[in-house]
C-alpha cells in the first residue's frame, strides 16, 4: 500500500469512527414517563405498562438494584416514578427532597425464598448452618440490594449470618443472584418468590415464613412536580386490574389491603 493509499484508509477510518460516535449521541426523542424500577419488577412492569388505560403512553423503564437507582436519582437522573423493592431507598430520596412524600405508596408485597439449582440437594433456611465450608450461596449485595438486605435480616435472626459470611457471593442485583443459581455455580441463592416462579432451572427449596422472616415490600413514589402521566401510572398501580396482574406474577397485596 502506498503512503497516499495508506493515508486515505486512515482518514476514512477516522471519519467512519467520528460519524458513528456522533450518531450514537443522537437523542431518540423524550418519553412521557421514565420509571426507575427494582430488578425484581422486570417480570411484571412490561405487562403493567401495556395494561395502562391510556393510549400511546411513551414509557422508558430502567432496572437495577434499588440502592443503585437511588444513587442515580440522587445524582440527577431524570426519573419521574420510582418503584423500589424496599422502603429505605424511597425514604432517603424523600428526605433528600427528591421524592414527593405525599406520593409514597406501598403497591405490593413479596416473599424471600431460598432456591437451589435444579439438580442440587434441597436445603432449608434452618439447615444452612450445616452447609460444608466449600459451598457457596448467592446473595444480593446487602449494601445496595434490598433482596440481599432481606436475606441478611433473615440470616441474622436465624443466627447464621456470621457463620455463613465467607460463603456468600454478592450479586449486583437480584437478576445476577438468580443467574448464579441458574448456572449451578452456587448451592443456593436468596431471591424473591416472584423471580423463582419464572426461572425454569431452579427450584424453590424453602420459603421465608415465621417470626424470623422479613416482609419485602414494593414501594413507589413520584419525584417532585412529576408529570401527569406519572401520577396517572402510580394511581393505576393500586387499581384492581393492576393488582390482578401483580398477583398473577406472584406478588402479594400491600399490607393492610384485603385480597378481594
Amino acid at each position, binding site marked *: 500500500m502506498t503512503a497516499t493509499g495508506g493515508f486515505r484508509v486512515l482518514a476514512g477510518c477516522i471519519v467512519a469512527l467520528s460519524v458513528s460516535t456522533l450518531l450514537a449521541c443522537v437523542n431518540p426523542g423524550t418519553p412521557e414517563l421514565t420509571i426507575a424500577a427494582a430488578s425484581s419488577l422486570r417480570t411484571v412492569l412490561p405487562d403493567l405498562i401495556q395494561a395502562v388505560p391510556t393510549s400511546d403512553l411513551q414509557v422508558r423503564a430502567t432496572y437495577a438494584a434499588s440502592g443503585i437507582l437511588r444513587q442515580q436519582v440522587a445524582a440527577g437522573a431524570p426519573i419521574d416514578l420510582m418503584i423500589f423493592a424496599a422502603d429505605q431507598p424511597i425514604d432517603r430520596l424523600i428526605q433528600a427532597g427528591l421524592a414527593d412524600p405525599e406520593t409514597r405508596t406501598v403497591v405490593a408485597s413479596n416473599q424471600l425464598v431460598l432456591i437451589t439449582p435444579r439438580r442440587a440437594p434441597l436445603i432449608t433456611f434452618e439447615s444452612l448452618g450445616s452447609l460444608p465450608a466449600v459451598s457457596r450461596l448467592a446473595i444480593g449485595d446487602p449494601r445496595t440490594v434490598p433482596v440481599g438486605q432481606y436475606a441478611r435480616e433473615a440470616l441474622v435472626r436465624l443466627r447464621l449470618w456470621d457463620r455463613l459470611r465467607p460463603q*456468600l457471593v454478592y450479586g449486583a442485583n437480584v437478576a445476577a443472584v438468580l443467574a448464579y443459581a441458574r448456572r449451578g*455455580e452456587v448451592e443456593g441463592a436468596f431471591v424473591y418468590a416472584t423471580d423463582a416462579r419464572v426461572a425454569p432451572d431452579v427450584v424453590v427449596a424453602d420459603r421465608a415464613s415465621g417470626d424470623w422472616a422479613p416482609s419485602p415490600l414494593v414501594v413507589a413514589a413520584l419525584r417532585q412536580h412529576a408529570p401527569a402521566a406519572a401520577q396517572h401510572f402510580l394511581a393505576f398501580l393500586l387499581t384492581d386490574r393492576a393488582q390482578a396482574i401483580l398477583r398473577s406474577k406472584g406478588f402479594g397485596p400491600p399490607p393492610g389491603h384485603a385480597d378481594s
Partner: protein
Amino acid sequence: MPTPDLFPVRLSLEVAGLALALVLPVGVVLAWLQAHRRLAFRTAVDALILLPLVLPPSVVGYLLVIVLGREGPLGRALEALFDLRLIFTPAAAVLAAAIVALPLLVKTVQPAIEAVPAELEDVGRTLGLSPLFLFLRVTLPSSWRGMLAGVVLAFARALGEFGATLMFAGDIPKRTETMPLAIYAAYQVGNDRAAMFYVAVLVALSLLVVLLAARLSPRGLRT
C-alpha cells in the same frame, strides 16, 4: 467513620504476588521459546499470548466461568478428580490475575531476550553448553532489566484486575474482594472515604511500578 478496612490491600498484594509466581516461570519460558525457535505457528502462538491483553476483561471472565465453573468441562473434571472447586475462591482471583498479566510479561521479556547478541549464545553453544546453562549465564545477565520490567508491569496488571476477577472469583468481602472490587463496592454505597483510600493505594503502587519500568526498559535494549 471507621478507618478503611485493610483486608483488600493485603488480599490484592497476595493475589498479585501469587499470580506473578505463576506467570514468571511460564512467561519466561514462553518468551524464550518465541525468541529462539523458528516455529511454523509462531505467529499463532504470539496472537494467543496477546489475546488476554486485548480482550475485554469481561470476556476473559466469561470464558473462565464457562470453562472452569462448576458446569464447565474443566471445572467438572477438577471437582470430580480432585474435589477441587476454583470458582468463587481466592484461587480464582489469582488465576484471573495471572491470565491477564501473562501477555504483559511475555511481551516485555521477549524483546529483552531477543536483544541478547546471537554471537554470545552461538559461542556458548559451540563450547557445548546446555540451553539451561546458556540461559542462566548468558541470556539472563544480559536481559535481566527487561525481565524485571516485565515482572513489574505484570504485577501492576495483576493488582488492577477487576472484570475477570469479579466474574470468576465473585465479590465475597474478606475473601475475594480485592482492592479494585472494594473500590467499586465502596463507590456503590457512597463510602467515598474507603474508595479514595484504596484509589490512593493503587495509584501510589502503580506510579511506583511505572517509574521502575521506565528506568529499567530502555537500558534493557542496550547491547
